[in-house]
């Protein structure tokens, strides 16, 4: 019987590669019986979906912008570009 600690590792690994069939089955059985692991699995998968789908797009949240001095310096740099 696999421990929750081992199952959490396998759940994580399943996000990065396909696990062998027998391992997948063992993990699935554990997840059916263990609410905590099932929730962890759901959460990390949701996090992946949210981040990769661009639903949580940090660029649109962050209100940082190029500092004014850098902005001017870059503009000058591009203006004085070699023809």
């Amino acid at each position: 019987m696999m421990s929750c600690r081992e199952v959490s590792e396998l759940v994580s690994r399943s996000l990065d590669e396909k696990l062998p069939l027998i391992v997948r089955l063992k993990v699935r059985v554990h997840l059916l019986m263990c609410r905590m692991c099932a929730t962890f699995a759901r959460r990390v998968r949701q996090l992946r979906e949210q981040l990769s789908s661009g639903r949580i797009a940090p660029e649109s949240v962050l209100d940082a912008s190029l500092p004014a001095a850098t902005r001017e310096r870059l503009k000058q740099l591009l203006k004085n570009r070699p023809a």
Partner: protein
Amino acid sequence: MGGAKPDKEGVPDPDVWVDRYGDQLYRYALIRLRDPSLAEEVVQDTFLSALKAIDQFQGRGDFGAWLMGICKRRVIDVLRARSRTTHIEADEDSTDPAERLFDRTGKWRVDPGQWLTTPDREVERAEFWRMLDKCLQKLPPRHAALFTLRELDGLSTEELCNEFGITRSNLWVILHRARLALADCLRNYLYG
């Protein structure tokens, strides 16, 4: 921007690049590098590389996306260089979050699921990112970088192993620790 010339073959006049793309590139770099001056350098490098390689663009596709591609490449270069120079031992020695989250028999000590991951409204998504960002800042920098490139930028495990010169099993350990630590951190933010 009265003096700027119209776009030529899909390439905007370099005089408008900073106003049109500067902030977007800066934010992209800042989120991944967490260092304002490095992010500024990356933006500068991106513009200069784009000037040099402008012939390669040849009006294909979206110029902004092309610039972003250059920027992404630069960000990975910086992260890779940084991971070579930082002490990897410090990274590896960082406490394994599993020690905190599981008891000696390997059972969960705390409910790992008590955190919101389906923020639906714009304002919730923004709030969620701010929380996640704070949690990412608590990770060892290399772990945060690898997690971000994997989850946010969708780099494959092969690409990450090649770029960072690490083995697959090493990468899995890092990504798993990052996921566990983030789960724990997000839970703490919401439920203290």
